[in-house]
C-alpha cells in the first residue's frame, strides 16, 4: 500500500457525469476530449456522453487513426492535435483595439474578461507543457512584466481547473518517460484520475480539487483497485512508443550546429510548420494590425507564428533562415538545447505530437539521436578563436 493511499479515492464510472456537473455548477466551461473529424480534440463538453469513449488511437510518425475499443473506457486514447494551449494561448487573440484622435491614441476596447475553464482529461505531459509556458509567459514570477496577451494567459491559467487523467495506454509516438513528464501526473492538477473499467482512482491535488471532490459520490477504493491502477501505470511506463536519450543532449546540440544530419532532415522536411502548430510549448507569435473597414479603428491581434516560415526571421534584405535546414535546426535546437538557456528547462515534454502530425513523419527523437550518435563538433570559426585564444595569439594569428 502506498503512503498516499489514505487520500486516494474512487469515483464510479457512472459518476463521471457528477464531476462534469459539479464543475459546470461552479461556473466552469468544461473542456474535454471529443471526437472531431476522426481526431481527439479538446472541446466543450456538457455531459459525459459528449466525451470520446470506447476507442483508442493509433499513432506513428505521420499517422493517426481512431479505432473502436473497449466500450467501458473513456480515456483509452492519448493526445489529439490540440490541447489546453488552444485556450490558454489562443492561436488568434486581440491584444488591443485603438483609434487615432487628433494627436492621441485612444484605446477602444479593453481585453475581454478571462474565461473560467475546466480541463477534463489533461495528460501529465500537457501539465508539464503548461508549466513550461508558465515560465515563458512569466506566470510563475509575479515580478515580471506582462503585456495584454500574457496577462490573459496568466489569468486564464490561474482560473483554470485541471482534471488530469493518468495515461495507462501510451501512444506510439509518446516519450514522456524520457522527458520525465509522465505518464502519471505528479503536480499541477486539481484532481487526477486513473481509469479502471469500473471507475476512476482519484487523487486530490489542491484545495480547489478537494472542494469539487466533496460534491462527488466518492468512496474508498479497494486494495485491488489501487493495485490495478498502480500496475496499469507501471506498465504504461514500459510501453512508451519512443525513447529519447537526454543525457548530454543539450550540450551535444549546442556544439553540433554544423552536422550532416541537418542536411538529411532538410531533404525530408516540408517546412510546413505542423510541428510548431501542434507543439504544446511553442510560444512564438506575431502581432498584426488590421484596420476597420470604415478606417476608424485598428485592431492589434496576436497570432501564432512558426519558425518554419520565411517571414519569421525576415529582416532586410532577407530571411536569416532562408533554408529548410536552417529552420529545422532552429526548431530542434531550440526545443532541446537553447530552451534550457532561456527558461531553465527543456522545451520538449515528450508528447510526440510533432512526430504524429508531421506529414512526412520526421521523428524528433530519431533526429536528436542521430546527431548524438555522431557528433561533429564543428561550429563557428570564431568559437575556436575565442576558446583557443591563448594558443592562437601565441601563434600570431586568429583563424578567420
Amino acid at each position, binding site marked *: 500500500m502506498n503512503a498516499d493511499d489514505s487520500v486516494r479515492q474512487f469515483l464510479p464510472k457512472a459518476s463521471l457525469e457528477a464531476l462534469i456537473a459539479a464543475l459546470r455548477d461552479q461556473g466552469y466551461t468544461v473542456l474535454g476530449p471529443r471526437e472531431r473529424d476522426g481526431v481527439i480534440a479538446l472541446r466543450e463538453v456538457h455531459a459525459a456522453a459528449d466525451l470520446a469513449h470506447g476507442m483508442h488511437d493509433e499513432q506513428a510518425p505521420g499517422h493517426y487513426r481512431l479505432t473502436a475499443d473497449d466500450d467501458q473506457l473513456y480515456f483509452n486514447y492519448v493526445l489529439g492535435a490540440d490541447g489546453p494551449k488552444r485556450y490558454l494561448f489562443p492561436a488568434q487573440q486581440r491584444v*488591443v483595439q*485603438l483609434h487615432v484622435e487628433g494627436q*492621441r491614441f485612444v484605446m477602444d476596447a479593453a481585453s475581454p474578461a478571462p474565461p473560467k475553464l475546466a480541463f477534463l482529461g489533461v495528460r501529465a505531459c500537457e501539465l508539464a507543457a503548461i508549466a513550461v509556458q508558465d515560465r515563458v509567459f512569466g506566470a510563475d514570477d509575479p515580478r515580471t512584466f506582462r503585456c495584454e496577451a500574457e496577462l490573459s494567459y496568466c489569468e486564464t491559467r490561474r482560473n483554470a481547473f485541471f482534471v488530469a487523467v493518468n495515461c495507462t495506454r501510451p501512444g506510439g509516438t509518446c516519450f514522456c518517460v524520457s522527458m520525465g513528464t509522465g505518464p502519471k501526473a505528479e503536480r499541477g492538477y486539481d484532481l487526477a484520475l486513473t481509469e479502471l473499467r469500473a471507475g476512476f482512482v482519484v487523487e486530490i491535488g489542491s484545495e480547489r480539487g478537494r472542494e469539487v471532490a466533496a460534491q462527488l459520490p466518492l468512496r474508498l477504493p479497494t486494495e485491488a483497485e489501487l493495485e490495478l491502477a498502480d500496475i496499469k501505470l507501471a506498465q504504461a511506463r514500459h510501453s512508451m512508443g519512443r525513447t529519447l536519450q537526454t543525457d548530454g543532449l543539450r550540450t551535444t546540440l549546442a556544439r553540433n550546429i554544423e552536422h550532416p544530419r541537418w542536411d538529411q532532415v532538410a531533404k525530408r522536411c516540408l517546412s510546413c510548420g505542423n510541428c510548431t502548430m501542434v507543439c504544446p510549448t511553442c510560444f512564438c*507569435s506575431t502581432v498584426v494590425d488590421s*484596420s476597420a473597414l470604415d478606417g476608424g479603428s485598428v485592431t492589434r491581434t496576436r497570432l501564432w507564428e512558426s519558425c518554419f516560415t520565411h517571414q519569421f526571421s525576415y529582416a532586410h534584405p532577407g530571411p536569416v533562415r532562408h533554408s529548410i535546414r536552417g529552420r529545422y535546426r532552429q526548431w530542434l535546437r531550440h526545443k532541446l538545447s537553447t530552451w534550457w538557456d532561456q527558461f531553465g528547462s527543456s522545451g520538449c515534454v515528450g508528447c510526440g505530437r510533432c512526430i504524429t502530425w508531421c506529414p512526412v513523419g520526421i521523428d524528433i527523437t530519431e533526429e536528436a539521436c542521430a546527431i548524438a550518435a555522431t557528433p561533429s563538433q564543428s561550429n563557428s570559426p570564431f568559437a575556436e578563436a575565442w576558446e583557443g585564444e591563448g594558443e592562437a595569439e601565441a601563434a600570431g594569428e586568429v583563424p578567420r
Partner: protein
Amino acid sequence: MTTGTNEISGPATSSITRPEPICGMDTWMPVATRVTAIKRENLNTHTYRMEIVDEALRAQYRWAPGQFNMLYAPGVGEAAISISSDADTPDMLDHTIRVVGSVTRTIFRTQVGEILGLRGPFGVGWPIDRLDGRDVVLVGGGIGIAPLRPVIYWLLANRDRVGRVVVLYGCRTPEDRVYAEELENWAEHAPIDVLVTVDNATGGWTGPVGVVTKLLQRIRVNAERTVVMVCGPRILNRVAASEFLQLHVPPSQVYVSLERNMNCGFGRCGHCQYGHWFVCKDGPVFCFKDIADIFAIEEI
C-alpha cells in the same frame, strides 16, 4: 585567457545602463509621438525628429545609446528603429529610417506635425560605462551609423574621459552617406578622427574608396586599450569583428549591434532568437565574447 592586464574585467553586459521602457513592455498600446522635423539623408533614408506628445511621459522618457524603439504606423504595424540622437536630450528623439518595407514606407509618408506610435526603449545598448581611459573605435556601415551616433555625441561630451576616438564609416556612394554634414563637421572640427570610405567614388569624391575595414590600414590600434563598436550589415559585422580580433583586440572589448526581425521587443515573440539569445532584450548590442560560439554561423 592571455589578454593583457589592461583588459576590462567583469561580465560583459551586466553593468550597462538599461533604462526600462516607459511604454511597451507591458502593453501593445503605443504612445503617440509627434514628428517635429524631417531631414533627408539620402534617396531612401530620412531622419525623423520626434517628441512624445504627452508631456509627463516625455519628461520621464530615458534611453541609452544603442537602444531602440518600436515605431508604429497605425493599421500597418511596427518596425524596430534604433534611437540616433543625443541621450542627454532624451525628450528629442531622432530615428533614422530607410525604406525597406511596408511600415518604413508608411513612415516615409509622414509629415511634420503628424503622429506615429512608439513603444520603448528596448534592449541593451553600447558599453558607455566601460569607456573610461579607453581608445574607442566605432565602425559603421550604411545606416548602421545610426545607433552609433548617440555614442559619438557621448564621446564628444565626455572627451576627456577617453583616449583616442576613431569613427570609421563606409557606404556605397558619397550620396548614400547618412549624417554627411555632421561627419564632415566632426572630421574637420571635432577632437575625434573620422574616416569615411565609399564603395563607388561617384561625383567629386576624392576620399578613400573600398570597404570600411580597409580604413583599418590608415589607423594604428593599441589593441589592449581599445574598445570597438561595430554596426552594419551582417557581412560588415563579420569582417570587422574578424579584423579587430586579428589585431589582438580582446573579444571582451569588441561589441556588435545585431539586426533581427523583431515583433514584441521584450523577448516573448521569439522572432529575434540568435542561438539562445533574444536580440531584442539581450542585445541588440552584444559583447563579442558572449556570442563567439555562434558568431558568423549562417542561419543561426
